[in-house]
């Protein structure tokens, strides 16, 4: 069966550059999977096989690596993947409320994708932003901090308009003025 996925010449050049950074091919697996995920939006088994064949590594190895990391999407996801943190700090500050609000708003459960292919929701473990709980991450990229229902409405609205939220700099307590 022919693989329906193919790298563009630019991708292949990028992969060559990645490979040249390492003495062996194996360490190039992770960055090459990123190249693939950027190109196709996911790393389904067929994409994993493409990566394996491109790098000349065993398919099983690439599969093992891809399944180890949750940041690689092993199935098709929405354009925007909303990773809502539900680990301790966020949980205490309303992480589950935010998750359930999103679920209700978008009409899907966690782990699912909306019919228009725009949003997926995931409940994830700690993203290391406990100071700004509750928070979520959009498609392995921007963090949205100090979530409230209003803020989520806004974010969804701007994402629907194709606009990623801006990076928010949140000061740590020691940076705020002490009175």
């Amino acid at each position, binding site marked *: 069966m022919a693989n329906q996925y193919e790298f563009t010449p630019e991708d292949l050049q990028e992969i060559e550059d990645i490979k040249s950074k390492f003495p062996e091919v194996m360490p190039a697996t992770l960055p090459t999977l990123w190249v693939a995920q950027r190109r196709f939006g996911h790393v389904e*088994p067929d994409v*994993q*096989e493409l990566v*394996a064949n491109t790098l000349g590594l*065993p*398919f*099983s*190895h*690439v*599969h*093992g690596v891809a*399944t*180890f*990391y949750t940041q690689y999407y092993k199935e098709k996801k929405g354009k925007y993947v909303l990773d809502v943190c539900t680990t301790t700090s966020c949980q205490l500050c309303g992480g589950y409320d935010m998750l359930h609000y999103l679920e209700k708003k978008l009409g899907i459960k966690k782990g699912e994708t909306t019919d228009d292919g725009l949003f997926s929701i995931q409940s994830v473990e700690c993203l290391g932003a406990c100071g700004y709980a509750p928070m979520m991450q959009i498609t392995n990229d921007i963090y949205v901090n100090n979530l409230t229902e209003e803020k989520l409405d806004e974010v969804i609205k701007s994402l629907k308009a194709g606009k990623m939220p801006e990076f928010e700099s949140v000061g740590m307590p020691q940076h705020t003025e002490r009175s």
Partner: protein
Amino acid sequence: MPELFIDGIRYEYEGSPKLLQFILDNGKEVPFFCYHPSMSAPANCRQCYVKVGMPVKDRETGEYELDENGERVIRWFPKMQTSCSLDITDGMVVHTQETSEEVARAQKDTMELILINHPLDCPICDQAGECPLQIQTYKYGPEGSRFEVKKVHKPKRVELGPRVTLDAERCINCTRCVRFTEEISETFQLTIASRGDKNYPITAPGKPFDDPYSVNTVDICPVGALTSTDFRFKARVWEMNQTPSIDITGGKGTNVDLWTRDNLVLRITPRYNAEVNDHWMPDAGREAYQRFNEKRISRPSIKIDGDNQVKTSWNNAIETFAETLEGNKPSDVVVIGSPHASVEENYSVMKFFSTWGVNNFHFAPHIEKGFGDDFLLTDDQAPNTNGVKALGIDESSDLNAAIKSAKVVVILSDELIDRGAIDASSLKGKYTVLLATNESQTSAAADLVIPVTCIAEHAASYVNVDGRVQRSFPAKETKYSNRKLNLEMSEGRLDRHGTYFDNWVTEENKIDCIPAWEVVSKLASRMGLDIAFDNSREIFEEVSSSVPLFKGINYERMDEENGVQLTGNSKEEVTA
């Protein structure tokens, strides 16, 4: 010589052994799961923890520092060490679980963690009875589990490939199977998928685990996660008994164990031999057990009116054989030896016929080009090609021509028609006598079929492609042999306690056959020739005194040295 102290006892070592292997080699024990002597040591099961320290040396004088009692001062490593991956260094002091409460406790705790998600299904698990996890939990593990939450569930009864079934819940992620496909069979078909308590070994999506050596992963799996699809639920290990033997499906002479119960061979597993097959065997050889049980020829049969064969008595079979020979001249008889039969069988048949006056001996090697690899599979499909050559039987590429002018054809245990070495039409008009183990097209074509013992029923020797002579032991009883009287046969629990009056013993599983050398002895006594063989050991002694290549070799040496290399049998001769 450098020294180390294990549990207060001084040992000397050479080279740079790993600590765990050294401990095992010296007859002591430390529990472990992921370590395997033939593969790399990733130290991921953490079970082989020991406490290790080094003596303190004075930097200036280089002398060991001594305490007030004159003992060396030991600086202990801050944490337990995995002995499988630790290099021994001079002066090292080691405490195993035998002398250190701390080590015993550490091993127990590791075991408790390994067992958190392990299902308690030993009563229905095939591995039970030969399971390192089960054994070591009894010996070193905790009595119960403190984890009362629901266990993690993972895929069960996954058909990894045609021959291996996976139960991911039982897996402890030692990665032995993954390392086997990476380091030994080099097919890279397995990987560990997912992470944390959800991980398990699996093939790449949509790919079967069809490695020609796949079942070895079942043997090395320290739990019941990988099981043999063929052997699943067939028998408990403690009901069977184990007999050393040789793989007959290839020329490599892979050392195997035959596992029998009630005189049926139920499975074949590899037996360690560093010179031949290490710990491994090809999957092809494991299927040979069917040949030992099924479609066996039991009781002689003779062709009457046309092509109909009927069973007949041993007396009639021998009488017919003798009359046929007596009705012809020795020059009209062709004898076809067999690379599938042992040295002893070929020798005894050849000796009888050459004494009687026949000098027309042939055999056809069974070669399938392209079947072999650089490992344990060989192009040679027969276990004893070099043995037959060593006896001086003519190698013949065209048997049809060789038997053309003959009136009587005697074939030893070789399915010549089935494998295309001879055409059925070539046997037309000739009287064909076949000594055989299994029903085949060849046996259907023969005029007289005499059942002989297979490798699972006799002790006999075979010479592999590299010129190494190795021998088998009888594993299955025939109608005429008795496990309790034949001291070479091993006895399992059911063999020892079964009687003819219970359902553990099935008389039909014993085949009505005798070794080829007994057939020869009967025939010789009927025809008045002075040839008689009592047993294969005696025959081999005769072979070793008359055939130069086998000089100085006997069964005792083969047993002690795990097979003996024939001298003068070069690699070249092997591939021919």
